[in-house]
């Protein structure tokens, strides 16, 4: 009984932490994007605008809840959660410390790769249930894009698994060696680009293309339901950065103690900033460019990298 209570409390704490992560992500993006465009970001809400996202969230919670007349109402209302829960559960397997992750299992790296992929189904259904042409188009594009970019991402993490000898994320972090940075550099590049595509971000944000589809698969969502979609996107960025910093860079380069923690946090923020940088620098890819990039560029690179990793690990 007590463990159930603990589980529920941990669940609440985790949800709040993930929401805070998304809040940080949104604020950081608006400041970084602003500075990159030679302007300030939010300035007036709290010091340096840190409370801006809080204001946005409170406002969105008390907005009117609109369900389109012809929409498939149960599916429509369920979809934000179907997209959020798998994406948030990815946080559970990230090795935050040496030898510890909130959910430590033997196949946790595979868990990290596979479970957020269920969000693709949620996006497809969200667009479809809105009974809106542009929503459906966005949903279909989201499903195609997410499924395509699963492959390079999985192959790049498989290179890690081959070198580490275990599919456990905690084990990968524990088995990190400094020369992985050199050998796995292409894998990291593939992982980074695929992660950007997996969270519908940056030059791969076709499913929510503003100038084209007017917000794609979440065009008919308002208020808190839309906010949950946004939380998925921003918490996905932070989760991908955390996992990349923990595994490809050994979580602070394997240095124990507070310096290692500082480096881990610094790497995470650096990767998040790079994802923001990439989004605000590049124009959007066309659907055919997107697909051909995944299948004809990233996947071969990841396969070659897997071969190299296998050869190196056998030496």
């Amino acid at each position, binding site marked *: 009984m007590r463990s159930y209570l603990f589980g529920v409390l941990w669940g609440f704490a985790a949800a709040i932490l993930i929401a805070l992560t998304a809040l940080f992500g949104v604020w950081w993006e608006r400041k970084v994007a602003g500075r990159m465009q030679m302007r300030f970001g939010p300035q007036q*809400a709290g010091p340096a605008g840190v409370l801006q996202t809080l204001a946005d969230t409170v406002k969105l919670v008390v907005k009117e809840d609109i369900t389109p007349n012809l929409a498939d109402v149960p599916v429509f209302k369920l979809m934000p959660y179907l997209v959020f829960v798998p994406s948030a559960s990815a946080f559970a397997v990230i090795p935050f410390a040496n030898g510890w992750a909130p959910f430590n299992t033997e196949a946790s790296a595979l868990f990290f790769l596979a479970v957020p992929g269920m969000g693709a189904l949620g996006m497809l259904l969200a667009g479809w249930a809105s009974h809106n042409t542009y929503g459906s188009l966005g949903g279909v594009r989201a499903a195609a894009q997410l499924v395509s970019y699963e492959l390079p991402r999985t192959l790049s993490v498989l290179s890690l698994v081959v070198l580490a000898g275990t599919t456990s994320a905690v084990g990968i972090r524990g088995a990190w060696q400094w020369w992985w940075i050199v050998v796995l550099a292409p894998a990291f590049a593939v992982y980074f680009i695929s992660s950007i595509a997996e969270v519908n971000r940056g030059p791969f944000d076709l499913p929510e293309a503003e100038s084209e589809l007017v917000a794609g698969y979440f065009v008919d969502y*308002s208020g808190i339901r*839309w906010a949950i979609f946004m939380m998925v996107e921003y918490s996905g960025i932070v989760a991908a950065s955390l996992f990349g910093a923990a595994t490809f860079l050994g979580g602070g380069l394997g240095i124990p103690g507070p310096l290692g923690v500082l480096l881990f946090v610094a790497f995470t923020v650096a990767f998040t900033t790079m994802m923001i940088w990439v989004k605000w620098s590049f124009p959007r890819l066309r659907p055919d460019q997107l697909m051909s990039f995944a299948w004809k560029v990233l996947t071969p690179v990841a396969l070659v990298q897997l071969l190299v990793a296998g050869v190196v690990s056998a030496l």
Partner: protein
Amino acid sequence: MASLGKTDSASDSALGYSTLESGVGNVILTSADALLGWSRGQSLWAFPMGTACCAMELIAASFSKFDFDRLGVFPRQGPRHTDVMIVAGTITEKMKPVVIRLYEQMAEPKWVIAMGNCAISGGIFYYDTYSVVRGVDQFLPVDVYIAGCPPRPESLQDGIVQLRNLVRAESVSPGVRYRRRTEIPLRTAPAPTTPAPAEPASAAPASAPSKDPA
């Protein structure tokens, strides 16, 4: 120069609202008013209904020299995700049903800013045209009017700040429109002084008497 539509307590009570003139209200409701007012005012996401030249100034106001984002205003496409519709530009008879439809798609609570002379009264197209709707307030409840042809981005940001004052003064108490009438700092015409040479071109604002926002 932006000015709020004048509302007074007489017309408010005729419509069934009341105003808490003395600021009375229990601590839960006033705290809720404060939090919701602050958050709604701080994050007014704008739907840029820009049809003509004023749209250029609207876009310029969101760029780096003038920067909407520091006020919390973010231009989003998609009416369902926005709070305030900024009608920037001339609205023709053919465009009117489109604007109405988009306004109805916005989620409550929502406000409207009429930016530019064409949206206020038809502007330079008031005479001799067969196709222009003379003023957006003929079919939308406008909260803030921003005069200018086109108004400078600073004027638009001033209008956003005025709208924020209006939003912050609203109340969630049942049947009450505004918490304290005196909390909305209405801009009135400045007292005539000897003209300073470096005065910017912000003359006495023509405070447009408007219908109450319904």
